[in-house]
């Protein structure tokens, strides 16, 4: 199976996943929960 995404779709998916991980990991205090 091969996935041929457009450049835009690939960029959107990349940013979504990166944002989720950074949103979780770059918090330091309980207030930021």
């Amino acid at each position, binding site marked *: 199976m091969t*996935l*041929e*995404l457009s450049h835009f779709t*690939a960029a959107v998916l*990349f940013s979504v996943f*990166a944002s989720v991980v950074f949103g979780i990991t770059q918090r330091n205090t*309980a207030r930021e929960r």
Partner: protein
Amino acid sequence: MANPAKTTPREAQKAAGSPRMSVIAPAVAWFIPGAGHLIQKRWVRGILIMASITTMFVLGLLMQGRVYHPNGGDILDMLGFVGDVGAGGLYIVTRMQGWGHGAIAHATADYGTKFLIVAGLLNFICAADAYHIAIGKKP
């Protein structure tokens, strides 16, 4: 402003977590993305990390991304390997199955290679986050 409340030694020890967990959590987090948070009962964070990194890695493979080998011979290949190996078990399974040879025929195959590398690098960050939770540095 700093919290003036005093903490008892027991509370401080509880916040710091067990020394064993500070070793196990990052190791498990590296091997299975998100598992380092899950074993510390951070369910939502663990599931989000697991879903994000696994999906990113699988999309990279489906986009015919290239999986780097440790002895690529080129310094940039070695850096690519460092990124890829961050995905832990996903990388090991991929190598065992012989996936990830890449295909130049697809215009977005290079994006797939980047997806694979970044999924591994993000997993390194998550393993560090799991370690910080284990030592009580983060909630």
